């Protein structure tokens, strides 16, 4: 266990270093570069700014400085939001993304797991077909269609919620629903497929043969195994949801991390674009380790090895 953790953490640090390097390389390939198009700026002022942020140095020196910043957890300043550290911006955007992402994840789990299990227990009945069809429809309803439709119906027509913005305490509802409905569809499909496969296995027949009740067979024996693919899927998805969906945050004009990343990429705010990529990678690494540990706890046949 300890060896597993250490090796995964080492691997995670390697992933984060790679992501930092790639994000740095990509940012620096954006034509123009930071501080080139500052309005009404004299060449001297531009040069002073470039010197202040260190972008006048050769690329390997800049990359080294980035690594030093992250290794010492003393993150650089944003190139665009002058005087604000990138950690400060992430700290302001992440709660917004999380306030949407966590309810979306809970909606998806609270609906997807029971609906999927319900369908798996009644294969090829009308209920099964209905929920499978609903799940297929959910998967085919992209957020850029579903989001505006929900905003139009519940925001602009019924006026139950704000159609966009981040002002009211209820502004998380529509974006969370948009994301939640889509992921509900995926989780329903995964749960159904996985539970049906598990129920066909021999240990289930054994459990039934020794007289275990149907509830206990499904929930104690089968679900424990059937949930593994769902967990596997949840690792990266949880990270995506927590760091904000680029589309949903754009539709609802939320000041979350996804929005900050897109504007940082367009504004040539390299330090912020790199920081958000690194933050995202770190979350994925952490969630994947958590998922691996949970899987080993649920399935005695999985051993954690380095």
């Amino acid at each position, binding site marked *: 266990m300890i060896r597993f953790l250490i090796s995964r953490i080492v691997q995670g640090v390697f992933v984060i270093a790679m992501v930092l390097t790639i994000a740095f390389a*990509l*940012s620096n390939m954006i034509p123009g570069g930071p501080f080139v198009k500052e309005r009404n700026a004299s060449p001297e002022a531009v040069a002073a700014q470039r010197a202040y942020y260190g972008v006048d140095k050769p690329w390997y020196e800049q990359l080294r400085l980035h690594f030093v910043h992250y290794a010492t957890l003393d993150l650089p300043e944003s190139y665009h939001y002058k005087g604000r550290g990138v950690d400060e911006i992430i700290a302001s955007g992440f709660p917004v993304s999380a306030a949407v992402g966590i309810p979306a994840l809970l909606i998806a789990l609270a609906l997807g797991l029971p609906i999927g299990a319900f369908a798996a227990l009644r294969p090829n009945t009308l209920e099964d077909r209905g929920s499978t069809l609903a799940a*297929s*429809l959910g998967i085919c309803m*992209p957020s*850029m269609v579903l989001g505006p439709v929900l905003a139009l119906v519940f925001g602009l027509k019924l006026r139950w919620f704000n159609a966009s913005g981040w002002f009211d305490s209820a502004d998380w509802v529509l974006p969370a629903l948009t994301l939640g409905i889509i992921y509900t569809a995926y989780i329903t499909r995964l749960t159904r497929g996985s539970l049906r496969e598990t129920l*066909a296995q021999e240990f289930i027949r054994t459990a039934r043969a020794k007289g275990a009740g149907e509830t206990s067979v499904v929930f104690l024996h089968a679900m424990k195994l059937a949930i593994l693919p769902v967990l596997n899927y949840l690792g990266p998805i949880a990270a995506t949801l927590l760091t904000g969906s*680029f589309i949903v945050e754009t539709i609802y004009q939320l000041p979350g991390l996804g929005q900050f990343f897109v504007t940082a*990429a367009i504004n040539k705010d390299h330090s912020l674009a790199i920081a958000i990529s690194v933050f995202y*990678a770190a979350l994925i690494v952490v969630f994947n380790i958590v998922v691996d540990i949970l899987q080993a706890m649920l399935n005695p046949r999985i051993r954690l090895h380095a």
Partner: protein
Amino acid sequence: MSSAVTNQGISPTRAAWRRLIRSRLNVWALGFLVVLVLLCALGPFFSPYDQAQQDLNLKAAGASASHWLGTDPLGRDMLTRILHGGRVSLEVGLLATAVASIIGVVYGMVAGLAGGRADAVMMRVVDILFAFPFVNFVILLMVIVGREFWLIFVAIGAVEWLTMARVVRGQVLALKNLEFIIAARASGAGFWHIAWKHLLPNVMGPVIIYASLTVPGVMLLEAALSFLGLGIQPPDASWGVLIQEGASSMETYPWLLLYPGLFFSATLLALNTLGDGLRDAFDPKSMAQHG
């Protein structure tokens, strides 16, 4: 086995095709896609309008005899724009999937055939790449390449090959110790000859299945990029562009969002249905899981 009756076996591909069209849902999905592809490919030639042609007297008008799906705020014919946008979206979907499939097949085949340490390292690389925040990279890439249409599918294809590599490598591992491969090797066939002549035909089934499931994902990514203003650039249109334009004026002209949204969702539904159908048809064992 019915071969005794017909005195003639049927090839696995034929059997899979029969299983595929046994489901009416699959036939509908296939039919829809064929009609859609024909409409998108040929429709713009028959339309009396150009997709970018404006009629400012009309502004955003509802459906009429001369404009079957109405016009947008610049007086452009919506049906023409949707078909043109569909062509762009389908092109991106197919070409990006082709790029991803080629990378994935070559990578997976080399890893599986090489085996041993090379295989272990190559698959570790895939594991590590799975933890990368690829959408962030694609967004940065799109800012770099800007308005270059052809780079969109290279960029998307370059990040969507990972699962394909795993699928192909798994197939190759299962195949490479079978007798016909050992026989080929014994008679002096080289690495690439075995890969190209003997393995490739045998991994095509799973490759086609997985590719068909990749197309809708790629189309969604393209639409997302265009929606964010980073993909296809107006006045050119893809479904992502049209949905974005529709969403920005949906309060006054809801049909501008509705029509392209319906076309896009129906296409995704058909592609997903067909992909699932193909998987079940090629792998009857998976029926228990998904059927």
